[in-house]
């Protein structure tokens, strides 16, 4: 199918519908969704558990920033992209890709390809 077949992608997204949508997109790309996690603590636990190929992080999680998850991922060498409606990555992560909401399937695919390329 694609180069992304079987990729284990962590999804951290606090909006259920958006998370479901992202899950479907990843499913369509042949990826395996880890999560989705809607809270900082859940996301952080999954990030620290390991076994991830990539991650897509919503920046704002019900009022909390997902920065700590991003730090954990960076520490674990897991490539990841932010997803946000804000249009700006958190301070200290200027080099990370940003997927602007609302996004299309192609956006997700391109971001993942870039992350792994």
């Amino acid at each position, binding site marked *: 199918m694609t180069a992304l077949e079987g990729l284990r992608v962590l999804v951290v997204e606090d909006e259920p*519908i958006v998370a479901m949508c992202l899950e479907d997109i990843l499913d369509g790309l042949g990826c395996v969704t880890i999560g989705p996690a809607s809270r900082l603590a859940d996301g952080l636990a999954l990030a620290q558990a390991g076994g991830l190929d990539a991650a897509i992080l919503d920046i704002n999680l019900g009022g909390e920033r997902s920065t700590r998850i991003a730090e954990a991922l960076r520490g674990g060498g897991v490539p990841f992209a932010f997803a946000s409606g804000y249009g700006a990555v958190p301070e200290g992560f200027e080099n990370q890709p940003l997927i602007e909401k609302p996004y299309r399937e192609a956006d997700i695919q391109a971001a993942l390809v870039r992350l792994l390329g």
Partner: protein
Amino acid sequence: MAPPEAPIETLPTGEDEFRLIADSAPVAVWVTRLNRQRSFVNRAYVEFLGVPYDEALVFDWRAIIHPEDAMRLLQESIAGEASLETFSLEGRYRRHDGEWRWLNSTSSPRRDAEGRHIGFIGVAHDVTEAKEAELALRDREAQLSAYISQSTAGFAQVDLDGRFTLVNDRFCEIAGWHRDDLMGRTMLSITHPDDIKRNTGLFERAVAVGEPYTHEKRYIRKDDGIVWVNNSVSVIRRPDGEPFGVLAVTLDVTKRREDEASLRKGEETLRLAIEGAGMATWELDLPTMTGQWSPNRFDLLGLPRTPDLRGTVDDWLERIVTDDREMARTAFERCVAKGKPYTIEYRIRRADTGEERWLQSHGSRVDYADERATRFVGISFDVTERKHAEEELRESETRYRTMFEQANDFIVTMTLDQIITSVNPAVLGSLGYAEHEVVGRWIGDFMDEDQVALSLAALQRKLSEGGSTRLTINVRAKDGRELIWETNSRLGLDDQGRPTSLQAIGRDMTEAKRAEAHQKLLIDELNHRVKNTLAIVQGIVQQTFKADANPRAARAAFEGRLSALSEAHNLLTREFWGPVSMARIIDDAVAPHGGDAGRFELEGPDLTIAPKTAISLALAIHELATNAVKHGALSVPEGRVAIQWAKASGNEPRLSLIWSEHGGPPVKTPSKRGFGTRMIERGLAAELGGSVKIEFAPEGLKCVVEAPLPEATA
């Protein structure tokens, strides 16, 4: 007088009679013979010599002649006798008492019947008094003559036609004409045309009634120059009283006139200067308390000028308004009594217009060397304009002081070293300091270093470019709070335009800045929510329009879901995205599905949930209701849905919510979990952080939610 001759010659007939007559005469009489012997002398003769008669006949006259006259008299006597004619002698002889007497003698030849010369008969008058009078007269004339010719006064005599008949040198010098030019010329011909009329009148009157006069007039000199003279004029008369001319004593007064003119000019200049400066003067003669006012003093008080320019102390006091009168009177009286000068300001009411004016007056007593105070001198001038200006200034100061005190804005003045010299109460209110804790301090004591640097840079800019500078600066309040001030400052300049101070006006922008930041946050949040909402809509679209979906059913489902989303948003908007009531969220969500027909039974406490949770809950309820209408209890008229929630107590408060349908057709477990189910089971569970379970029980679908009570719940 002839020397004595040989005695006794017979006297002619009637000799006794002659002797009798001769002796009674007051003059000396003697008779001589040809041999010059005296044959007779009378009593006056004997008495003059003071010797007996016989001695008198032979007395040698030469012995008593004054030495100064002796030579002349002897010569004249010899010559007279030799002429045989009557001759006279006059000279001084010593009388028997030793006194020198002037005697005037006349000797006449005597002849006999045949006409032969037989001797002389002489008479001598004592003319001493007449002679001395004549000599004295001659002396006086000589003195007068010397005086006239050498006098500093000029003398000129004119006849009744005014023609010069006599002038002295000095007159020529004064009048500027040579004596020869003047003789025969009339005095009017050298008189200034402007003085002729008056001169003529005085001259004619003097001649007519003999009245002397003194006047000043101008002569036109030969060189056309003009000389001012003072002439004292009197008529001169002949012994019979008939006037024949006029004598003038002339003094040159040109210099005096010039001095006077110059003095008058000086006085006039001074007077004009004083009046020009608006100063009115008055002088008071203290012994009589009568005062002389300058004309403009009357004007100043609005009084008519009196012809003699006299004004009294009361005239003045009456014009002063009642409130100020006693003060002025006291100052004046103390000055007059004790010599204490005064400077006072008071109001008067003008006599003519009734207008109130302010005057300033200075008074001094003039004390002379003998310490008699005789004069008081005062000057006054109108200071109304200045007073009004002062008044306005005072009002203006009060006004500005009020503004300074009352302003909400901050007003700070500083030296160029940024030492605070004054602040208004608004500053103190904002900073929380007392005035003494601020005034005299450096502004750096109230702000951080970087802010001081900003302020210094602005000051440098003003010093080099002038104008004012706007600055947003952070200031520290006494309690450490950082305040944001917006200031506008400029330099205070002196008369020469040199900067002397720094003035700043400012206002606290802390709240405004906070509001601004808040607004920015809101806009960012709104942007985020819109984007988020769009992401949700996109998700709904993706889930609703699957490849295998019935397009019409999918569209209806989409509309329903979008509508539920929209309802939830409406509620959140109404609640300003704050916590919302759970009952309201559920009620709104079921309403489109027959909620208003009483088919839903809602039961639970009044709990509130966070906005984001509310959206998930609303969408979940919507999905459940849609399913109930399509396949469940609400697909038949008798079917009902009960929604019950409760707050369960435990270690942490928990929410339990149960959706249960009944009265509907038998429920079958669906072969495939659709969007709705996933949305409820996973989405809401994730959102709530709890568990959501849907049971497809045959008697009716049941959904059980167990979750920690959301934080927003009160």
